[in-house]
């Protein structure tokens, strides 16, 4: 019978090469990618909290980095990843309840996810940037 150690070289069923790329497929992998991005970005959250707990100098350093151009780009991207992943998660919870599994419904949910995440990110940054003076 089979030997114990090492992965045997088995044939792999084709996937990406044979299926037409649909929006729902794309949204699925983007859900995973945004999850990974959020995972890495929790380092920023921990840094912010630790800086606040450490003292004014540490906090000032964080503020300087966060309000730099690169810092703002990262925070904007993180905001979009967060909103997009959350709306995607709601999509999954809707599916878990048994609803929205039809083709048209799933397409609609995928579109709503994308449109919603872009709109909410812009809204949050509008509120934070202009109303709260964050972009001053």
């Amino acid at each position, binding site marked *: *019978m*089979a*030997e*114990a150690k090492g*992965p045997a070289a088995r044939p792999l069923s084709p996937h990406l090469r044979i299926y037409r790329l649909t929006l729902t497929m794309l949204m699925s992998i983007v859900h*995973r990618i945004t*999850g*990974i991005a*959020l*995972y890495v970005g*929790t*380092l920023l*959250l*921990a840094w912010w*909290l*630790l800086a*606040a*707990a450490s*003292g*004014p100098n540490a*906090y*000032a350093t964080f503020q300087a980095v966060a309000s730099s151009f690169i810092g703002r780009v990262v925070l904007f991207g993180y*905001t979009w990843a*967060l909103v997009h992943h*959350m709306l995607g*998660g*709601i999509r*999954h*919870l809707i599916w*878990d309840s048994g609803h929205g599994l039809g083709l048209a419904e799933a397409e609609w949910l995928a579109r709503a996810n994308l449109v919603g995440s872009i709109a909410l990110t812009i809204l*949050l940054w509008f*509120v*934070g940037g202009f109303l*709260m*003076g*964050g972009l*001053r």
Partner: protein
Amino acid sequence: MTMPGMHGSDMRTPDMRTPLGRVRGYGAAKSGTGHFIAQRLTALANIPLTIAAVLIVISLIGHNHAAVVQILGSSPVAIIMLLFILSATYHMKIGMQVIIEDYVHDDAAKYALLIFNIFFAAVVGFSSIYALLKLSFGV
């Protein structure tokens, strides 16, 4: 032991295992329901907690350090942030675990990454909780 004239893999060192011993560990995992439920539960909790945390962060933009300390150290804000950290770090730990199990099949790399995942979530979670507690009770 190999003898001249004998061919085939079963003529090398014989595998002493029984048929049952050879197949143990393969097949369906038969566990994982707990993680499935926990992922949905933390996802559900994350919806209000993340919205609250984002609103807290936005409300602290541009404020000076003293104001940030006072707000983050206040009871309702600290409690919300602590719950958010707990739910989000556990959610990200089990989420990343699935990703690693999906793509990494080399045993050494897989186990190393799975262990790193647990440590990463623990360090990020614990550091954040420590900072919040320090802001609430510390000097």
